[in-house]
């Protein structure tokens, strides 16, 4: 199909153009859209992109770390402000993919992709659409299909009091890396040896990254040891909806979810 490409200097113009067309898709790093083009996707005939520098900024704004939607995984790894997210970005693809794949694009990556978004979910991130108010990532993901017409400008992450409270693991079948069997991101703040307001999110255990709400509840006020996490492990598969795909079956993902959760919580990995 003949394709046309429209490039805008301002992200707001790009967002308006996207909203005004039913047959346009927005191009971030290209790893999703160009793949669709290569596979002859007939659902769009226009590619919209922007060169707006706002999408390439990483900045601390008050209590928020703001990451431009056009920041690539390699840029996350290289930037000091986002160093705590480097272990997550490193698990996304090989070097070439990481030089292309963006934070904004990952928000739209279908399961089993989207590990970076799972981390953002655990970090209680908000997303900033062009010409709109910030919305919680959770709200955005719950209506992701409807939100496909949005152009994302940036992601806001509340400042972590203790970056060591953030943990992440991605489980793959091949080394050093591969597509996720599952991933877990967790923020585990401790107060006097007890967990307070832990946030846990899963990648590849549902149609989109999901919070493990039952696990979070079961961890409240507990200590991070075998006895303290027992109840959380008992409810580890509650609320998950794993896909069966060429990487793993629904059954297998349910079997291993508590195993990897336990290792992550007890720090038995890495």
């Amino acid at each position: 199909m003949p394709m046309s490409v429209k490039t805008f200097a301002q992200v707001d113009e790009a967002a308006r153009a996207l909203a005004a067309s039913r047959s346009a898709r927005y191009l971030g790093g290209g790893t999703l859209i160009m793949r669709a083009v290569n596979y002859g996707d007939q659902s769009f005939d226009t590619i919209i992109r922007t060169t707006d520098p706002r999408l390439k900024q990483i900045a601390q704004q008050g209590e928020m770390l703001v990451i431009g939607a056009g920041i690539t995984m390699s840029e996350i790894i290289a930037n000091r402000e986002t160093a705590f997210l480097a272990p997550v970005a490193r698990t996304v693809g090989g070097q070439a993919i990481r030089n292309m794949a963006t934070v904004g694009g990952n928000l739209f990556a279908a399961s089993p992709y989207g590990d970076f978004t799972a981390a953002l979910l655990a970090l209680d991130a908000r997303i900033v659409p062009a010409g709109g108010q910030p919305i919680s990532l959770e709200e955005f993901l719950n209506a992701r299909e409807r939100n496909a017409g949005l152009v994302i400008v940036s992601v806001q992450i509340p400042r972590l009091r203790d970056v060591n409270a953030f943990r992440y693991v991605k489980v793959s079948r091949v080394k050093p890396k591969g597509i996720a069997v599952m991933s877990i991101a967790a923020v585990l703040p401790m107060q006097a040896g007890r967990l307070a307001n832990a946030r846990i999110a899963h990648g590849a255990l549902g149609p989109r990254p999901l919070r493990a709400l039952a696990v979070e509840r079961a961890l409240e006020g507990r200590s991070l040891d075998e006895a303290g996490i027992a109840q959380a492990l008992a409810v580890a598969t509650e609320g998950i909806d794993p896909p069966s795909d060429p990487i793993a079956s629904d059954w297998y993902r349910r079997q291993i979810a508590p195993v990897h959760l336990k290792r992550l919580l007890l720090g038995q990995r890495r």
Partner: protein
Amino acid sequence: MAKKPIQFQLNGSGQAIFAEEGSNLLDVLRRGVGDLSPKYGCGQGTCGTCTVLVNGEPRLSCLTLAETVEGQSVETTAGLAHGPQLHALQHAFMDNFAAQCGYCTPGMLMAAKALLDRNPSPSREEVVEAISGNICRCTGYEPIINAVLAAAQSGGRRYG
């Protein structure tokens, strides 16, 4: 069909061509310019055989919108040798039997070149990481890793 003019540097020499809108860099290189060294493998970012360097950094040319390299520097395997003198990586790949069917080789070479340009004496682990986005379906990874390490040991000069 609308065509767009694109100008970029390919292996150090200027290129100016007309490309169909929406075409990817790999198509422009192979069909537009006639550089057949980068290969089309999966078309979905999984195999890495289309890897080229854009401003020295590896990219998947099949997923790169061609017009985004306007004014940029692109390197492919075709630019590795200087006349009859092969690049250290090319010598090392031959000496270590690092090519079996050869389909992944151009991508492996470019991923390895990006690594050695940045890090002239990588560890084995760093080599594995650098080629982790490139699939060798013959599964001949060990000779490839050994070749990259051998090229590094040769100091990037003529190998052997």
